């Protein structure tokens, strides 16, 4: 009996003690602490290099640290300029720990007879181990490409995620236009604005480029410069491996705004052959169409989420250009209006994770960029007092947004360039310099 009472009292007292209870408060996600990453170099025979060789060697070494400086939120980049033969020795971990370095990247570069030999190693200082090593030889013309591949691999070893270093950006420019021939052609460049290369020579006006997943093809539309009775906007596809161009759609009217679906076998595009601009899905091989929108208002500019289920588009069905989403499995299925404000909204683009949509909106004197969740909540402003900003495109990892920005230089002159910012609107700089008016950038996936 006594034992039973004791047990009962114990249980009651525990109950009373827990009656008030602990209150758990979630502090939430941590902010990222920057990792200090140090770059060292060694170039044996530097004194014997020609000026061109010196430039290439410098450029390669600078590329390694410059790439990581894009991720300034994650990394504090320290680039040591001195030619340090210690690069060949095992790193002094204690020394670097004292300097609060998290990672060390060493590059040994030598150039001889038009060939660059390189050796790059990366070390995790806190864990005291080598995390990356690559040696090889390359032609001088490919040194930047190899450099980006190396930094991409190092980034992956550090963070476990893919970077933007090996990605490309395609854009439209009037760089080669003359006073008598106003043309806009398709170009491609590295993510950092280097290696600009012209792709098309249509002598017309190229619009709405879009990469395929894996960046093997580029879709684009073309307005020819020839004056015809029924001027058409046709859809073409550029093969980056073979440089071949193929005609995809030349239905009467508009064939534009095309994007690849995640399976790379279908595309979504705007067609107006039925008399009104509507959005369709087309099978690339069979050219069979499946209609997605059916409304008397104009429906254009599709953008697909990463899983291919949700499609964002621009529509005038509310009386003004607003952003909508729909279920891509059916016609007018699950249409939801996402934006309710703004005088004129344009170019909605899904983030790679499908959770956000970035778009441009007209405000008073020009366009600015905004970001909204795909369910219409959390409207945020990204740009302000920075010219007129349009055509946003997310990077592959969702950390950056490239866009075109127009600067008014005088009453008669304005310049448009491609700029890059992080996803929270911090402008990192412009990618195109002296490349004419550059518009509609699209980041490879």
């Amino acid at each position, binding site marked *: 009996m006594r034992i039973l009472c004791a047990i009962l009292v114990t249980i009651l007292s525990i109950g009373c003690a827990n009656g008030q209870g602990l*209150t*758990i*408060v979630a502090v939430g*996600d*941590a902010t*990222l*602490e920057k990792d200090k990453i140090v770059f060292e170099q060694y170039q044996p025979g530097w004194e014997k290099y020609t000026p061109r060789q010196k430039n290439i060697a410098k450029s390669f070494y600078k590329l390694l640290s410059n790439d990581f400086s894009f991720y300034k939120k994650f990394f504090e980049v320290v680039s040591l300029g001195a030619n340090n033969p210690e690069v060949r020795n095992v790193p002094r971990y204690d020394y670097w720990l004292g300097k609060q370095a998290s990672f060390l990247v060493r590059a040994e570069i030598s150039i001889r007879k038009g060939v660059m030999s390189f050796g790059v190693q990366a070390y995790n200082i806190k864990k005291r181990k080598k995390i990356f090593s690559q040696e090889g030889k390359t032609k001088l013309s490919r040194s930047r490409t190899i450099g980006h591949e190396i930094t991409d691999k190092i980034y992956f070893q*550090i963070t476990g995620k893919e970077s933007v270093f090996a990605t490309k950006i395609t854009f439209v420019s009037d760089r080669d236009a003359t006073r008598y021939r106003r043309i806009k052609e398709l170009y491609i460049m590295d993510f950092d604005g280097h290696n600009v290369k012209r792709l098309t020579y249509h002598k017309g006006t190229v619009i709405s480029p879009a990469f395929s997943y894996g960046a093997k093809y580029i879709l684009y539309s073309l307005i020819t410069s020839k004056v015809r009775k029924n001027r058409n906007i046709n859809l073409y596809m550029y093969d980056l491996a073979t440089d071949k161009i193929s005609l995809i759609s030349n239905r009467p009217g508009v064939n534009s705004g095309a994007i690849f679906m995640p399976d790379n076998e279908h595309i979504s595009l705007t067609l107006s052959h039925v008399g009104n601009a509507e959005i369709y899905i087309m099978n690339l091989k069979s050219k069979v169409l499946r209609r997605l929108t059916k409304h008397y208002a104009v429906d254009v500019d599709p953008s697909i989420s990463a899983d291919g289920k949700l499609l964002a588009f621009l529509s005038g069905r509310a009386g003004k250009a607003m952003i909508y989403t729909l279920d891509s499995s059916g016609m007018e299925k699950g249409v939801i209006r996402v934006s309710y404000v*703004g005088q004129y909204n344009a170019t909605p683009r899904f983030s790679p994770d499908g959770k956000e949509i970035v778009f441009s909106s007209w*405000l008073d004197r020009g366009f600015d960029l905004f970001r909204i969740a795909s369910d219409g909540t959390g409207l945020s402003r990204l740009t302000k007092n920075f010219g007129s900003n349009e055509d946003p495109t997310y990077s592959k990892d969702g950390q950056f947004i490239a866009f075109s920005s127009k600067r008014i230089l005088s009453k008669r002159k304005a310049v448009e360039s491609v700029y890059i910012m992080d996803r929270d609107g911090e402008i990192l700089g412009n990618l195109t310099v002296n490349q004419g008016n550059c518009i509609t950038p699209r980041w490879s996936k």
Partner: protein
Amino acid sequence: MKILQSPHYWDKSIYFYTRKSLYIHIGTIIFLLFFSYLFKKKSSWDAKVTIIESAVRVDVVAMPKYTIQELKAFQEQSTDFNLEHGIDEELAKIDDPEELSFKVKKKKQDFMSMLKKIGNKKVAKTKKDKKKDKFLSRKMRNELKNLVVAGNKLSQGTALTGSGVTGEMTIFGKYITGIPTWVRPNWRLPSYLMQDELKCRVQIFLNINGKLIKAKIYESSGNKEYDERALKAVHSSDPFPKVPAEVGGRASRGEIVLGFPL
């Protein structure tokens, strides 16, 4: 029988029943028409009500004025004001408008301007009014801070409170919901720890002034560095906001547990 066989009889019956039938049919049609009219009217009313009920309610009425970068900068500035610990004397001085007036050389005034000055002279404020003004300026400052950052917050409330709603719990709940905002600026992780989706919980003991008496790991993440960084975030956040007197006992008994992240 003969009557039945008479043609006149049948003529009269047919005529009678036909007439009756006609009246009944016409009456039924009129009744149905009237009834359907009533029903249609009612359903159209219902339709109107449905349309009104289905109107979309929109909270955002304009495009945001401030960019994310501007809001971040504003939030960083506003945390410097640390109103929980009282206004600095410097700030109190600035609030006093007389302090802001510049010393101006007094010129000789004519009679008319002197009269105007006397007429425009404000009545001296009483002590009560002065206290109200001080309160208002602090309140207005808070409201302004909240107004600017409101609408751009993407996160929802993070506090998990116990069951039941009593007067004391509400005060306690209000206090603890402010703690994550206090601690979060000090909660930092390197990239290699961010990816592992670790979780730990730290129990904190606070005195009535918000001073941290003790902090200990309540639930470990399994990673020593992660736990150490969570403890460091707690110690860096010391002192915490003042604890309301009604719930001071609960804070000192360690009833607050901070989850990193949950």
